[in-house]
């Protein structure tokens, strides 16, 4: 198992990278952490003509607070760095909670935050988490205006995004959560670090009357891409967050998911997992929202 031939470029700045991507056109492919791409190249499922390696561009690795209380994360920030960043832990505890389940420690040391989102693997966690966190993605290219794309609009299919071959995802901005917001992640996998058979993450915000001001839910591993639920909003917003209501959500989202059967589990089993994991996640998010975290 060895990759096919390709040309290699290691620009030292974003500007240089954008020039190279524009010049290479359809042959060019961005190499970020490489923990998915190089595996795919070893299998020769991916055979890019040329790689533009971002690993020598220090300006793409950062975690910066934004003026409104959110965070901006550079595309090449390693998942391990995100997982252990005090800023991230304080503002977005959902991220370290999820990161813990991404691959293994050695993968997280090298794998990049932006790369995982841009890769849009339907079984990856970060594309879905970016969606449920209302993340905004900055896409730059040599000849076009910089554009901000909502994570919800970024992914258009399995391994497919609106990022074109001359484009580069340079940073992801996470908007702040209102006070009294709680979030949580639930998954079932065959082994720790393995792909989740089904997973979900929820974000709940309570108003002063303890009713749901906002409720967001992402369902993963049960469709061709992470599914942001509409049903949860119909059921919970403006309502009392009760155990019964959470169970109703677990039932209602059955019409939104489209799981498939494979060696590890049947579609029916995945539906059952979602039925169980969604109320579990919502109960945990509620508990955390009450604590104000």
């Amino acid at each position: 198992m060895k990759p096919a031939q390709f040309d290699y470029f290691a620009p030292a700045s974003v500007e240089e990278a954008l020039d190279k991507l524009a010049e290479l056109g359809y042959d060019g492919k961005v190499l970020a952490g490489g923990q998915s791409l190089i595996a795919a190249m070893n299998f020769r499922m991916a055979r890019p003509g040329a790689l533009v390696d971002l690993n020598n561009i220090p300006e793409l690795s950062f975690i910066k607070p934004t003026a409104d209380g959110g965070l901006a994360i550079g595309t090449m920030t390693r998942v391990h760095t995100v997982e252990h960043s005090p800023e991230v832990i304080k503002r977005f505890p959902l991220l370290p909670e999820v990161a813990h389940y991404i691959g293994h420690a050695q993968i997280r040391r090298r794998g990049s935050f932006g790369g995982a989102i841009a890769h849009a693997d339907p079984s990856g966690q970060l594309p879905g988490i970016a969606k449920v966190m209302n993340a905004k993605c900055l896409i730059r290219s040599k000849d076009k205006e910089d554009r901000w794309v909502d994570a919800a609009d970024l992914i258009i299919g399995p391994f497919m995004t609106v990022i074109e071959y001359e484009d580069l995802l340079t940073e992801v901005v996470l908007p702040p959560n209102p006070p009294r917001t709680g979030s949580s992640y639930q998954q079932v996998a065959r082994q720790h670090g393995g792909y989740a058979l089904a997973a979900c993450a929820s974000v709940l915000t309570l108003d002063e009357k303890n009713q749901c001001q906002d409720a967001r839910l992402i369902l993963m591993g049960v469709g061709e891409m992470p599914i942001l639920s509409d049903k949860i909003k119909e059921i919970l917003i403006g309502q009392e967050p009760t155990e019964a209501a959470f169970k109703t959500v677990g039932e209602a989202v059955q019409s939104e998911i489209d799981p498939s059967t494979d060696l590890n589990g049947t579609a029916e089993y995945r539906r059952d997992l979602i039925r169980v994991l969604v109320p579990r996640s919502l109960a945990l998010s509620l508990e955390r929202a009450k604590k104000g975290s």
Partner: protein
Amino acid sequence: MAQLIKIKVTVNDTVYEREVEPRLLLSDFIRHELGLFGTHVGCEHGMCGACTILFDGEPVRSCLIFAVQANGHEIKTVESLGTPEHLHPLQEAFNEKHGLQCGFCTPGILMTVVPFLEENPHPSEDEIREAIDGNICRCTGYEKIIESVQAASEKMSSGK
């Protein structure tokens, strides 16, 4: 014509200069170009952990990095730990506690555990299990590996 790129890599404190094709994996560079066969190659897609090395001190899969990307960086492989006469305390512990049978996964496990014990010198059993969850062993059933890591942590913290 394949592109050839000149690289300068420090491996186990020795500087090597080579010309490589971009598609050469770091794991193959270490084995075939440098003749350091301690780094084992199992699955070549990041699942088994046998090829784990330290890249600037961090444990990573050498099969998911190209050799060209190691240019200017510092690599440590299992050969950096000890010699047959003077084993590293972690190697000693694996020897004493039967932490290996066929030994294929062992270099990857050692290179995962060395930085782990530096960060967490007194790990619990659960923490050890989690630390090595990215390394597959098909012989031991892991129990003896856990015991070895526990024994190593005692050895290393008592300075023996």
